[in-house]
Every structure is written in structure tokens, then in C-alpha cells.
């Protein structure tokens, strides 16, 4: 029986994972952490005399609040044995937030959670969700990558990708820890019903115009948010440490994915994109493109290790479906 802590439970992926774990008979209690107030979808989980879910609001990137929380009676009494690091994937509170101790907010959160897990007397398992956009991409419209493929350690990589790589390496460094079992799940573009897309550096959170590299249309591997929750659940109950690629069956070119999710794109030559990017950085603005390489080369993930060691097989498909109002939009459905 597991007592689980989930970070960023107020964001879409966190909510999906909480829902999955709530109906898992082998999970006794869930301690959810989030930046904001408890989502309304948790109301039914939080009701009752002794709810299995408890929710706490905390700034995960700040050392003091995290320290206070993990040393509080509330957390001690919860006897948490498994922590799930769901990274921040929604829009940040304000894009111009300063870095925390020189690190991005996401990296600071990963570092603090790991530190608390290592110091905790009860936590023995850590499941971390990461991004598959950490890999160095070889030339090609679609290349197969496995867990041992090279990471992109290029110093010029965009801050967002850098933060994913930093998180990845923070958890990777503890994979062989004897006291703490660490399972790191690398996710491609996550798709949720209604045309929502997460973790893709090109897609961002909001609908609108995006730039693409002229002459390139990389393939994007997709995974349903429900499958992410299933993979997380499998990692919680497994006894193995390691890094696992988690992906669904479907893939689509970036232009198609952008069109399906209401993000119109305009193709520009690579030279112009680089110049725009440099100009934006000089002006202290956000990068125009997450990485020119990622706008050119696509990847799909070899998920054999997750299939064999975690027993994870994708059970949801991603495709266009006609919504109730007659519009076509990206949906996920069980196989």
C-alpha cells in the first residue's frame, strides 16, 4: 500500500495523475501539492470525514516553504513513501520571474524535491516526469531514440530545454541510489482531450501563431495524458530504478499538430529565424524559437524498456475527432 505525494497537482497532468491514483486500490493516501488553490475537480476527492486526498499550497521552488512543509506534522503523519515529481508545464505565473538561485524555476523545484526525498525518513521511491526533448536530435524528419541516446548538452540550447535537461540530470544522478528508488519517465508531446498539448517547447500553452523552419516539418511523438498517468502509476508500483521513455503509438508532423490544436504556424528560413532569435535575446525578450534544431528534426521514442520493466503499454489513441459542436479537434480515446 502506497502513500503518495504529487507535485503540481493543480496543473492538468497532475490532476490526471491524482485521479488515476485516487481510484487505485493499492494507494492508501495522496498528498497533493500545488501553487494555486485546490482545483474544483478535487472537491469530490477532498470531501468526507477522512479523505484519501489532502492538498497543500506551497511554492515548490522556494527552499523555506518546502522545508517547512516536509518537516510539518501534516506531512510526517501522512507517512509518505513515494514522491511523484510532476514538473511545471502550465504557463508560469509571470514569464519574467527571476531565476531562483541562478536556476530556472523547474530546475529549482526538482532539486528541492530530491533533497527533501533524500533527507526524508519515510520516502523510498521517487517517480519523476521529464521531457524527451532533452535528447540531441540527429538530422532527419523522424529518428528513433532510446534511453541511452545522447542528451543535448549544447551550451546554446534554449533556457526551456536547458531546464528540462538540468532536471533530467538531477534525477539521473540518483538512479543508482541504494536508499531511494528513482524512476525517470521521459515524455514526448502530451495530448489531452479537447486539443490541449503539453511539454512541447514549440507548441507552448496558448493558441496563436508560431514560427516554423522553412523546408522542415519534424515528426512529433504523441502520448495521451491518460497514458502518462498509467505509466506513472506503473512506476509507483514497480520496484525498478531507471530511465524510461514513455510514448503512445501515434506520431504527426509538427505542422499538422499545430493545425489540429489551433496554433497556426508560419514558415521562415533558418537564417531569418536565427537572426530574429538573436535580436530577441539582445532585447531581453523570450527566445523566438525554442531551438532551431528542434524545429527541423523530429524523433520518436523506443519504449521497449518501459514495456519490459514497468509493464507499460499505451492504452489510448490520439486522433482527430468531431466534437459535440461539430468541430474537429484532437482527442484521446481508449484502444
Amino acid at each position, binding site marked *: 500500500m502506497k502513500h503518495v505525494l504529487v507535485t503540481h497537482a493543480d496543473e492538468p497532468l497532475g490532476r490526471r495523475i491524482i485521479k488515476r491514483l485516487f481510484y487505485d486500490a493499492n494507494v492508501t493516501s495522496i498528498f497533493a501539492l500545488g501553487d494555486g488553490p485546490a482545483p474544483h475537480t478535487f472537491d469530490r476527492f477532498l470531501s468526507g470525514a477522512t479523505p484519501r486526498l489532502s492538498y497543500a499550497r506551497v511554492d515548490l521552488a522556494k527552499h523555506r516553504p518546502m522545508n517547512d512543509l516536509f518537516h510539518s506534522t501534516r506531512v510526517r503523519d501522512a507517512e509518505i513513501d513515494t514522491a511523484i515529481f510532476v514538473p511545471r508545464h502550465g504557463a508560469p505565473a509571470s514569464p519574467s520571474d527571476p531565476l531562483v538561485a541562478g536556476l530556472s524555476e523547474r530546475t529549482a523545484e526538482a532539486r528541492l524535491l530530491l533533497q527533501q526525498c533524500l533527507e526524508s525518513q519515510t520516502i523510498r521511491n521517487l517517480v519523476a516526469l521529464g521531457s524527451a526533448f532533452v535528447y540531441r536530435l*540527429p*538530422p*532527419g*524528419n*523522424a*529518428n*528513433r*531514440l*532510446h534511453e541511452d*541516446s545522447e542528451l543535448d548538452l549544447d551550451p546554446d540550447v534554449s533556457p526551456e530545454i536547458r531546464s528540462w535537461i538540468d532536471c533530467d540530470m538531477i534525477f539521473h544522478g540518483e538512479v543508482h541510489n541504494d536508499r531511494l528508488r528513482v524512476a525517470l519517465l521521459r515524455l514526448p508531446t502530451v495530448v489531452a482531450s479537447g486539443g490541449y498539448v503539453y511539454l512541447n517547447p514549440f507548441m507552448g500553452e496558448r493558441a496563436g501563431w508560431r514560427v516554423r*523552419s*522553412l*523546408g*522542415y*516539418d519534424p*515528426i512529433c*511523438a*504523441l502520448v495521451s495524458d491518460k497514458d502518462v498517468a498509467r505509466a506513472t502509476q506503473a512506476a509507483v508500483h514497480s520496484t525498478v530504478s531507471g530511465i524510461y521513455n514513455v510514448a*503512445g*503509438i*501515434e*506520431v*504527426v*508532423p509538427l505542422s*499538422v499538430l499545430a493545425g489540429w490544436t489551433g496554433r497556426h504556424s508560419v514558415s521562415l528560413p533558418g537564417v531569418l529565424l536565427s537572426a530574429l532569435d538573436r535580436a530577441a535575446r539582445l532585447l531581453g525578450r523570450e527566445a523566438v524559437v525554442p531551438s532551431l534544431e528542434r524545429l*527541423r*528534426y*523530429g524523433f*520518436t521514442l*523506443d519504449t*521497449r524498456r518501459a*514495456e*519490459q520493466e514497468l509493464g507499460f503499454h499505451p492504452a489510448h*489513441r*490520439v*486522433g482527430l475527432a468531431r466534437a459535440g459542436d461539430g468541430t474537429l479537434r484532437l482527442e484521446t480515446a481508449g484502444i
Partner: protein
Amino acid sequence: MTTSDWHPHARGNENPALGRDPFAEEVSIDPYLERLATLRQSEAPELRKQVESDSRPRPDWAQRTVKKPPAARSRRARTPTVGEVVIPEPSGWVDRWLGEDVRRRLETLGYMVEGETPYDRFGFSPDVARNAFPWFQALYRHYFRVRSEGHEHLPAEGAAVIAGNHAGLLPFDAAMGVLDILQHTDPPRLARAIVDRWAGSLPWINIFYARVGQVVGTRENFADLLDDEQLVMVFPEGMDGIRKTITQRYRLQHFHVGFVEQALRAQVPIIPVAFVGSDDQTPILYNVKPLAKRLGLPVAPITPTFPWLGPLGLLPYPVAYKIVYGEPLNFHQRFGPESANDSRLVRYLANQVRRSVQLLLDRNRS
């Protein structure tokens, strides 16, 4: 002596295209196996005694069963045979020109895709391939007038590596090979041609290659295709093949060995194939290497028509193609997956494939 009057069984009569074979002193004995036997003889006597006293049944080295990878990875539906496919009535002159058999074969391309979206894991799109097919079929039938033989060596199912010669600046040999295999296998099979990484970095070209089923040659891609029980077409000469000048026509260049490693690891046969005609489609008179290096191109050719006619000068001449598939080389029946780590063996086997392809070329050139 020219390449054409070379005979493989004439002792001391070396194929000028291949150069001296380092293993040719004793043609009847496989020198590598002989060396292995010598090594076994020199093993510690105690160890040998232990092995000899072991009464457990031993697998026959030559006929041992091959352990397949643990997970059956392919989620694709079974490809139907040509007779099983139902197609609509022809809707235009293109359909009528293609013919019913070809249209049935094109219909089966949809079975390559696993999920709900119309793309496979390497970006192949059946729709794009079907739209591109008539153009290449016109080249196949009327421009290159392709003839082919040896289709009985192509497996109806399961993975295999098809290794052939490469020439002619633009990869029409690969395109003709893929079309030929699609039209001479039942159920129809789409050979996945491995392309150089450089091609994967070219704008628009990288998209087109991926959508019609070609795959960039990384180890992971290669292994995944074989694991998915697909036919993988490789050109082990790589870029050296397309750089060949007119004086090197039909003389195979150095073979890269990665395809043998992958075939051994996946325990699949290698089918040699000769593309007769590709060396004549764009004869390179001279390769301006300094210019190629400066421009970051694999080759800077001067041909009878390029650069005099501009980009049009790169188009191939209407030479007749002949594609010949050789007997499968079943190295996997003698060497296990662990042999892929033996660089000397892998090099030796790659040379064997090279000799087989050269033989096919020599026999069919006339």
C-alpha cells in the same frame, strides 16, 4: 584484364574491381572458422574436459534456433495479399494506366501505419506515397525500363537486409528498387531504404524522403526497422558510391560494415542486389573535391551535362535498369548476435556481401 572476363574460381585471378581478397589463399576453407577451431584447440585442457564431459544436449551450431527479441513490437495489422484487397473502380486515366494490380498493391500501404494518425513512426505517409507513386512508376516503366529477376529470394515475411550497389548522383536506384520490390512481392512489401544523415538535413528533401518511407541511417533506426520485421535496403558504399567517376563504373567501393552488425544482432539474412544501369545514369567525369568540401557537399561533379545545362544537367540519362536479387546470405545461421561485436568477423562478412554484389554486377552487365 577487364572486370567482365574475371572468373571467381580461377585461382590467382583476382577481381580488379575488388582488389586482393585477404582471405583468398584457401578458397575452400573459411579462414575465420579455421582460426576459431585453432583457438578452441588451445583452450585449457581442464576446460575442454569439462565441456567434453558435459552430457547435456548441445545445440547444433549450424541449425540452432535463434532467440527472437523478447517483445513483439509491431502493432501493425497484417498486410493483406494482393488478391484480398478491395479497391474502388478506377476513377481516371491515371488509375487505368496504373492497372488493377498496382492499385491493389498501393492500397496495402495503409497497413504500414500503426495508430490513428496517417503516419508511421518514421514519418512514412501512405497518402503521400500513393500520390508520388505514379510519377516514379512512369520512370520505372518508360524512362528506366526496369527489368528484374531473382524475386524468389525476397522473403514474403520477416525482416531482411537488402544490400546493393549505389551510383548516379541522385538515388534513382533506391527508388527503382523500392518500386520493384513493392510490385514483385505478395503480400506487397515496402522496402525501407536507409539514407545518409546528410540527406536528412536537407530542407524539403528530408520531408519527402520520410513521407515515402526512407529512413535516416542511425543505428537505432536500423535496429528498430529490423525489430519491426521490415525489409531494409542499404547501400553500404554510402556516399563513396555516388562520388564514383566514370573510370570506376561498376567497381564497388569500400563497404561500410554497420549493416552486417545490425543483421547479425537481429539475426536476419542479407540479400545482395545489383542495380545494373545506375552507374551509367549520370557519368561523373571529374569530382571537384575542393569545391565540394568548400560547399559542404558530398560531391561537386562535372558530367557531360552538368554544370553546362544548369540543374537540368543533373537529371539521369534514360538508361535501361536491370535489378538482380541474389541468394540470401544467411550469416545468422552460423553466427549468433554476439558475433556483431567481433569487428574482424563483421569486416570479413561485409567483404563477402561485397563480393556477392560484385559478382551479380559482373554477370549481368552485358
